[in-house]
């Protein structure tokens, strides 16, 4: 890709006739004007940021499809199809250059580009999807004939194991048509691909495919999993190569031209990670009980209460609560004193020092590879898997309805407020449920939505401090 200063761009050799999604395998032989270099990138960054926001708010896949569709139309559209494709490709490579330069940037770029690809793929029709799969050049064949016959019954079982109708729909008047529709959706699909199970980890994890002797049988409608895995793997490798090239040749060569642009583009788009607490939120040990009741989100309140009750938390809980407290401003020494005070009651202070103190110091970046870990965002907490004896995770997702109601009651929600929250929970909008809780507890609206426990804490502190500026909250 060549960046030039001239006014007119020479005609590109890329022939674009159908709306394919480019795979960004190699930088295309295009010439790009310097102004476009930056502008295209900014537009694409807007799209990626929108994807990031949507995911952080816990939108389900169908909603994300719509989000991506809208974002793409708003920022990346062009009346000329070949211009649109060029912008797509150019902007990707520019952003890749910008975001290859650190681990954190790489991780964000990889997640967002993969999500973008996934939803653009889902928006295409089956023919277009098959064409895209073909482009990857995967050696996997469709299952046919006798083999397909022998698998049919179990493939049917898989389809039926995934089908569900929500209770409310069943009670609708159009019950018959719904049942008919659901019957249709239980049919085994026409085309199945035999791929190694390693290629479709998300389908395996969700038990959404039949697996036999190391092969997964992927339905046509599930192709997205296959290609997304390939796409992510390819981009991941490409990022490493691009980084190497940047470090060895490009950065120096372009230091008067592209490098300043590249460096500027990266700083604007990483959301707050709450790893450094601001002055608002420094808390000390003596305030911690009070502050836990007044400003902690439900997930952290629960962990805190369990810690006080049991004088112990398992690893997942220690990580989730410990990092949250760090983000809230608890200094390392105070943290050690806090956890020691609790754990000593159960295991003794000697055992605490031997087995648990190291972990706390590790969280603050004082041990091991000295990473200063960032507190978990809602997305991470919601997708965690609390098991036996665990109390971490997101109560809106992981608690039973009764337990959740009891917990919300203790937070002071009225019965109507509770119904609104439970409604969100039933629809799996856990972060919206938490936002509604916030709004009910503090009597104000939170338009931006909760997507980080430390955000909940800071917003809460802001409100409480504005009401009683002098008193400790």
């Amino acid at each position, binding site marked *: 890709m060549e960046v030039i200063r001239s006014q007119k761009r020479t005609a590109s050799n890329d022939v674009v006739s159908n709306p394919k999604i480019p795979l960004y395998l190699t930088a295309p032989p295009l010439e790009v004007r310097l102004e476009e270099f930056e502008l295209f990138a900014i537009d694409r960054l807007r799209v990626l940021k929108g994807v990031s926001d949507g995911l952080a708010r816990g939108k389900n896949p169908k909603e994300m499809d719509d989000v991506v569709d809208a974002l793409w139309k708003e920022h990346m559209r062009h009346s000329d199809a070949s211009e649109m494709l060029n912008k797509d490709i150019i902007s990707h490579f520019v952003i890749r250059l910008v975001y290859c330069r650190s681990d954190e940037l790489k991780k964000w770029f990889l997640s967002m580009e993969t999500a973008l690809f996934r939803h653009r793929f889902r928006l295409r029709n089956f023919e277009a999807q098959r064409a895209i799969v073909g482009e990857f050049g995967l050696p996997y064949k469709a299952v046919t004939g006798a083999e397909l016959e022998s698998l049919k019954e*179990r493939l049917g079982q898989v389809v*039926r194991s995934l089908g569900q109708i929500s209770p409310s729909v069943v009670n609708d008047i159009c019950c018959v048509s719904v049942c008919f529709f659901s019957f249709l959706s239980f049919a085994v699909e026409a085309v199945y691909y035999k791929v190694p199970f390693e290629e479709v980890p998300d389908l395996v994890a969700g038990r959404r495919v039949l*697996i036999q002797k190391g092969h997964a049988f992927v339905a046509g409608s599930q192709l997205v999993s296959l290609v997304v895995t390939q796409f992510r793997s390819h981009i991941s490798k490409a990022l490493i190569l691009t980084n*190497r090239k940047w470090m060895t040749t490009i950065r120096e060569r372009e230091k008067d031209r592209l490098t300043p642009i590249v460096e500027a583009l990266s700083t604007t788009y990483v959301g707050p990670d709450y790893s450094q607490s601001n002055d608002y939120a420094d808390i000390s040990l003596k305030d911690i009980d009070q502050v836990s009741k007044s400003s902690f989100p439900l997930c952290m309140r629960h962990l805190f209460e369990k810690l006080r009750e049991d004088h112990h938390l398992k690893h997942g809980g220690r990580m989730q609560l410990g990092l949250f407290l760090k983000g809230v401003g608890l200094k390392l020494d105070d943290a050690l004193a806090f956890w020691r005070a609790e754990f000593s009651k159960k295991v003794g202070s000697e055992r605490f020092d031997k087995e648990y103190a190291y972990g706390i110091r590790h969280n603050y970046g004082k041990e091991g590879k000295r990473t200063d870990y960032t507190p978990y965002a809602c997305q991470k907490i919601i997708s965690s898997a609390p098991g036996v004896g665990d*109390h971490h995770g997101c109560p809106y997702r992981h608690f039973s309805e009764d337990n959740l109601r009891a917990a919300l009651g203790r937070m002071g929600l009225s019965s109507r407020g509770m119904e609104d929250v439970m409604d969100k929970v039933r629809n799996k909008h856990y972060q919206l449920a938490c936002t509604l809780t916030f709004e009910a507890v503090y009597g104000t609206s939170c338009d931006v939505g909760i997507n980080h426990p430390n955000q909940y804490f800071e917003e809460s502190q802001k409100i409480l401090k504005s009401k009683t500026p002098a008193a400790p909250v």
Partner: protein
Amino acid sequence: MAFLRTRYVLVLSLTLTLKAILLLIITSSMVVIDGKHPGCDEYYFGRREFSFTLENDVYLRYKSFKSVSSLEHAIKSCFPYKIDIGAVYSVDPDKRHAYSQTGTNVFTPVERELVFDIDITDYDDVRYCCSGADVCSKCWPLMTVAIKVIHTSLKEDFGFKHILWVFSGRRGVHCWVCDPKARRMTNEQRSAVAEYFRVYKGNENNARKVALMGYSLHPFLARSYVDLLKGFFEGELQANQSIFSTKDKYDKILEMISDEDIQSELREKWEKSANRSSLSEEAISLVRWDQLKNTLQSKKHKAPTLRMCVEEIVFTFAYPRIDLEVSKQMNHLLKAPFCVHPKTGRVCVPIDPNNCDEFDPLAVPTLSQLIEEINSGGSKMDVDDDDDDDTDTSLLGKSIKFFRSSFLEPLLKSCKEEIESSYKTKIDKSKDSFSW
């Protein structure tokens, strides 16, 4: 459970442990196959991480050894109470700081067996005979069923061939999948397999810990249910645990039924019959299970969540509960087979998955028994002895023989074949310049 802590004893136990470990390690290192084979990576063993837990809980990670004899030497001089095996890294773990963390020489795991850890304390909410670290013949069958379910799936669904099951020494089992393609799995793929096996999503915060949605079970779950879980639940588990015999016990099960009316109907019926029955605990339990099944059968159309309530109850009690975190990451360390468990003194012997019903955790040889055996001059203790004599009555003889013939030898053979074939491919391609 006398656990003698003299140096003499430790040396013996460790030599014993060592000899057996050597077999496992040697295999993984592919050194013994044919050390002179040009396709052999002679530095492979040096890149394997070990960890030692010493007296006073001193924990030493990132230990690595150039050769089997330096491992032996280290064990004899450090006297570790526990030896864990980790991943094979890109560079020798004990030299990791010599390499920069950026660019091509990053210190990162390259190969690691796919491992599973099942611990019976994770079943405390469904076993009434023991809790915590205890284990007995009434609850151990939970481990047996877990082995069968997971082993069948690893073989039939995932196509793995080289699977070793090991007693963890006290209250659980470990599983090591050593196929080459298993060793090369990424963290994401390991996580996927762990999630595939995950059914129980419980802790004290939710009542319905197993939620089977959909209109039928996934073929893996269906096969496990029909072939293993159902029979186990209605037979051995009921006999050992009598899960319906008292109010406390059956209330827990009734809470798993998501329909209040059905719950009260059964609760009333059972409260009434509580005092009048002259049947044994076990018989009462079975009668109530039948009643529950019949009631649910007739009422399951009431709500989708009742459709597979019977299966959910069976899965809650009987289905394997693996520790997900152990399996998901390549850098997770796991106790080496044939170690002696520091608290029980028992040897972590292999378990034959095809005969696991016969395994008795309380009959596993202990360190004191081994010492006695050595002192009385009873056994040869030389593991390299290729004596196929079936009259070998030494305590560990059978375990070692099983380990060798059922696991090590086939794995050795497969590794050798892999080295030879990849070497051949390399030779064929050697005309081309760079392969990537």
